[in-house]
């Protein structure tokens, strides 16, 4: 469930004000946002993720108005409910694939109140990571650092990072821009499949018209 109401935004040094369309997405609904470069696609996505505060309007995710949250609560909310996929930035350089996913889970989870629960959660988390890596065909590079992975593997890892914590919303910023046709298809299919499995909304912003046919809903900025 994601909804936006009358969102506007302007950069400090800029007089131009962005006006963004209202969006209402029910459970499992996906959306493709198309637009030329510089039209404010990424800005819109960052507002949806709570990385930028809009000048006016609200972003409501699963009933929570995210702009009403305090900074640290918003950090936690984002960690728990939003998964992001970027075009080039996949995960943390100094960590292995497996540790990246563990870190992702660590930051998204709430502080543990019961320490005995910790080991149990750890095993659950570990088996979850193993299963996801299996599913995304990344099992072989479980302990590899990022610089040892191929482009396709990196983008799949990026998807894994965005869904490991069962988010409500998956936001993808140009996920296919640097991929060839075949990989482009694979990535979009994986994203849609993961979104469905997690019962999450998937929003993809792109100028890549190749993926238009994969989405029922699309808007152009």
């Amino acid at each position, binding site marked *: 469930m994601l909804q936006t109401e009358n969102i506007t935004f302007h950069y400090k040094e800029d007089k131009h004000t962005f006006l963004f369309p209202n969006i209402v997405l029910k459970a499992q609904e996906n959306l493709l946002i198309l637009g030329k470069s510089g039209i404010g696609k*990424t*800005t819109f996505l*960052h507002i949806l*993720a709570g*990385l*930028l505060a809009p000048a006016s309007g609200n972003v409501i995710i699963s009933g929570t108005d995210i702009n009403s949250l305090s*900074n*640290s609560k918003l*950090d*936690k909310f*984002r*960690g*728990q409910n*939003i998964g*992001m996929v*970027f*075009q*080039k*930035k996949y*995960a*943390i*350089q*100094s*960590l292995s694939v497996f*540790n990246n996913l*563990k*870190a*992702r*889970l*660590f*930051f*998204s989870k709430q502080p543990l109140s019961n320490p005995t629960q910790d080991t149990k959660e750890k095993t659950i988390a570990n088996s979850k990571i193993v299963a996801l890596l299996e599913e995304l065909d990344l099992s072989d590079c479980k302990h590899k*650092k990022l610089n040892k992975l191929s482009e396709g593997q990196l983008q799949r890892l990026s998807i894994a*990072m965005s869904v490991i914590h069962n988010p409500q919303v998956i936001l993808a*910023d*140009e996920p296919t821009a640097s991929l060839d046709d075949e990989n482009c298809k694979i990535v979009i299919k994986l994203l849609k499949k993961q979104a469905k499995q997690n019962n999450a909304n998937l929003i993809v912003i792109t100028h890549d018209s190749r993926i238009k046919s994969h989405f029922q809903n699309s808007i152009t900025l």
Partner: protein
Amino acid sequence: MNVWKISWQNIKSKPLYTALSVFSLALSIALLLGMQQLKTSFKHQIENNLGTIDLVIGAKGSPLQLVLASVLHLDNPTGNISYKEVKKISKNPFIKTAVPISYGDNYKGFRIIGTTNAFRKLYNSELEKGRDVNASLEVVIGHIVAKELKLTIGDTFLSAHGLVEAAIETHDEKFVVVGILKPTQKVIDRLIISNLESIWHLHEDESHTEDHSEHSEENHKKHPNEKDKEITSLLVSFKNPRGFLTVPRTINEQTNMQAALPKYELDKLYEYMGLGFKTITWIAYLILIIAGLTIFISLYKMVKERAFDLALLRTYGATRFQLIKMVVYEGFTITFVAFAIGLLLVKIVLPLLLKFTGITFNGNVLKELPFQDILQIALVIFIIIIVSITIAIYPIVKMKISEILSNEK
């Protein structure tokens, strides 16, 4: 997984860079600690040799010379003083002990002093073997004398004139070793101790030594008859601090002798030397600041270079505070390891260096660096690191995630 583990992975992911940072910091910490230790050892060495001596009374001249000669046994004495007059002074109610010393001879470079058995009590020195001196021409020898000259109880030797080893002239009568002292790390380790009578006795029959060089003439008893017996100086310790107020002035004003405060004179000397130590300490601090700067630059670079990573972590739900913690952990790990290596270097390398260069003039010269000094240096480093980290994390505090992520392409 937690913040600390991520920090650790970050450190491990750049081993060469980390090693260089650690090494440069460790080296400057070692330099600083080593300097401090040498300074402490030197100061201790001097103060240790004071024993319980509060005041030195001797012939007029340079007070520093008097102290150097009578306390550290380094310089030539200023001259001789009348034993009769000294005995009078000893009766002063403020004086607890007054130990006369007299010399003029050496054996293979080690000074032979004539004194009483109270002398070794000034240094809390104890006998290792044998007994105290009971009669003329008996000696008790210090630990280093025994070791270096391989003398043992019952050995005899002939003494030579003067205070340095140039022994052409020797006396005919032999000294006999009756006791050996335990090591004290003080100047007494390097002395040969006899009684006053031995010195007087040796020089009684030697009117022919009158024509000796000027300074050795001074050191010798010119009129060895009972009334005009002379000694080199008197080592005094007071009953209470009030002695400091009255006794030195009385002596300096009312007699033809001088009273010198060894603590004061040596502090002055130490100040002259201290200037050199101070300079080196400043250089060490300068190096430390440079090392601190290295740490700062590497942390700052890390924050800048990993701006994308840090922004990504924020999208994962990491708070600003967690990112700051991450940088702080990294900074402190590097510093802690560097400090440990620096301390190890000082503990292992410095003694080896001293041994290698043969600077072992008084046995164990190195004094353990007091914990307080280590703590003080650690504190200075801590402050430098805190400052570096504070500046380095500033970009995190000001971080605009959206801007960083938008610039990824």
